[in-house]
């Protein structure tokens, strides 16, 4: 419909509402043949913005280039060996996995419980749900800047609330800053995952709960015996998004800490950016980009495997 209204501004009157009959029948006749060509826009889009840059980055990882001179020079494996023996990169790798695991541990239970809660029918549920989803509407940069201001030891939350113990060295202490990063990341992404779980919970057939309460199962038992198993695939989806998202976590950390203090929050994606665009070393930056792609891909495949061999079998047998 969007295309017909777009191409037919001149047509007025009753005929305008109906799509051109000739073209619809054309579509139908081709549908009986191959419909593969309909995927062309998507494939072209992916090839141009996904595959081509990916190949470009891979090639660039064997080259020396500062991003300024007209032509990069061939270097061979130099970038790979220097990056794979660089302690800064390994530290960044460790941090990335640390943040990934902790984010998952923090976000999954909270999102799951919030999702289950917002899928219910309690009083004021809709109002509360709107409040929970607010962070989803803000950009990472805005959230980071806001938290930076809140965490300021002299003029932030501690000073305005008059709570002196809140005036910690939040962004300056190499250990504390990690918890700050995980907290802000969770604050930002929990709403999104709650939304996934809310949708998942609403798909669970009511009969299951009815049957369970007839058998005398309480709320807790129902949660562990029905809700949780039924949400298996939602958990896998949400976890995949969290894990792969952690690999590429950049904008929030970049604005919040810039990788500091020292290198204590320099995660892999940030390491890549700082090398490529701050230090003008496109080659080493590309090596890290390749590593991120490989590890992210591996993790996504692994999590898909977790779904088991019966990934496509029904959970609704007997209903």
């Amino acid at each position, binding site marked *: 419909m969007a295309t017909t209204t777009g191409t037919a501004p001149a047509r007025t009157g009753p005929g305008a509402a109906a799509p051109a009959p000739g073209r619809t029948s054309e579509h139908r006749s081709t549908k009986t043949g191959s419909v593969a060509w309909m995927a062309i826009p998507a494939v072209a889009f992916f090839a141009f913005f996904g595959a081509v840059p990916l190949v470009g980055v891979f090639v660039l990882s064997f080259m020396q280039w500062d991003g300024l001179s*007209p032509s990069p020079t061939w270097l061979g494996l130099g970038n790979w060996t220097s990056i794979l023996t660089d302690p800064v990169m390994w530290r960044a790798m460790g941090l990335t996995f640390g943040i990934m695991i902790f984010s998952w541990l923090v976000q999954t239970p909270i999102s799951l419980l919030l999702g289950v809660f917002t899928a219910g029918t309690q009083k004021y549920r809709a109002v509360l749900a709107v409040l929970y989803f607010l962070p989803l509407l803000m950009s990472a940069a805005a959230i980071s800047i806001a938290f930076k201001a809140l965490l300021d030891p002299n003029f932030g939350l501690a000073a305005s609330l008059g709570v002196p113990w809140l005036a910690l060295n939040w962004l300056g202490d190499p250990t504390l800053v990690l918890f700050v990063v995980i907290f802000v990341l969770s604050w930002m992404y929990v709403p999104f995952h709650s939304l996934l779980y809310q949708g998942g919970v609403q798909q669970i057939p009511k009969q299951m709960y009815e049957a369970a309460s007839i058998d005398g199962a309480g709320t807790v038992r129902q949660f562990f015996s029905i809700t949780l198993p039924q949400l298996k695939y939602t958990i896998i989806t949400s976890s995949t998004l969290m894990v792969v998202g952690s690999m590429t976590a950049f904008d929030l950390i970049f604005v919040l800490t810039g990788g500091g203090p020292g290198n204590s929050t320099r995660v892999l994606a940030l390491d890549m950016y700082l090398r490529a665009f701050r230090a003008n070393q496109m080659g080493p930056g590309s090596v890290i980009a390749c590593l991120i792609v490989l590890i992210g891909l591996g993790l996504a495949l692994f999590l898909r495997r977790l779904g088991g061999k019966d990934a496509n079998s029904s959970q609704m047998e007997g209903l």
Partner: protein
Amino acid sequence: MLAMAPLAGAALSACGTSGPGGSSGGGGDGKASWWYLSGDPNETIRKDNIASWNEANADSTIDITFFQNDAYKTKIKTAIGAGQAPTMIYGWGGGTLASYAAAGQVMDLTDWLDQNPDVKNAVLPASYGPATIDGKVYAYPNENASPIIFYYNKRVFEKVGVSAPPTTWDELMSLVDTFNQAGVAPIGLAGQSRWTSMMWLEYLFDRQGGPQVFDAIFKGEADAWSNPDAIAALTLTQDLVKAKGFIQGFESITADSNADQALMYTDKVAMMLHGSWTYAGMKNDGGDFVSGGNLGWFDFPTISGGKGDPKDTCGNPGQYTSISSGASEEAVQVAKDFFAKGIMSEEIVQKFVDSGQVCIAASAADKFAASEDKDFLEYAYGLTANAPVFQQSWDQALSPATAEALLSNIDQLFSLSITPQQFADNMNATLGQ
């Protein structure tokens, strides 16, 4: 966590679409193009500047496009690399300019400036340092200098009973104790921003060992960072940290929110080392703090046995505008005309002075007297014009790769997680890169 990737994409594409699109190279409607930073007062000054230039020179018009500072730094690099640079490239000179010059992307202006001494001498000679690479000038210095100034809060000094700011390092260290005992933090520092901490090292290296210490680093001489004077300066820095010279939690304070300036005008700290631009910030945000005469300033203290001239200054000696070597002949001519007659015209110099900035025009000296910020401007201009050595900010002077390593090591030096010797070893590894 999925939302991350699309969000980052959206942020990037937002940057892309805010660009000028067509006005790359010498394109657009104008004969030449110029990318400039957004943010007043300079955005308005330049907007009016270009509007009146285009009115007066209908056949050599200029397109000006404004970008937010951090976005600009990435965008200009990409544009130059892609051969899509504007005719006139706004910059900070130093290491970044050297990387453009090495890639053959900016024009050598040496001969042109020698043939036009009026243009060359219209700005302070000290400002040519960061524009000069291997004896050739690749940018025209203009606009304003930002010397780094040691400020103090007269209200706090009076309350604690300290009569005068320190003139030597030993006096500074004893003042640190005095203020700590009185329950006031001695020095405000926005340590999270890192370049703020770097300003301390710039001055201490110079006062301790003279300009040759950093010169050797700049030239990439082996082991230049472990020069005994460098180690001594790094040790003094950590002594100051250990003596609780900086406000507690300084590692969490950020300069982009101006929280460090706020510490000054809310009387939470006694002193602050910062760029000259913070004068205007404290004047705007601090109520009657500046207008009531509560803000003072003094020369960076001397170190006993130090080799540096006490008049040496650090900071940014000016702004640097280059001409893209990819620009058409016509665009180059427009840019040169603009350098000669438009970029630092009498009217523009007056506007910079009126806005409280340390304009580097030779003609600016007589204009400060009429300003309401006369005392400060004359001090800052004197600091710039009379400095035997005006050391450019290290992160601008060094190559981008070294600057990145420097900032992250400075962070660790100030948090005492590495020793001066480890700092020197880490930085020595970046020499010659």
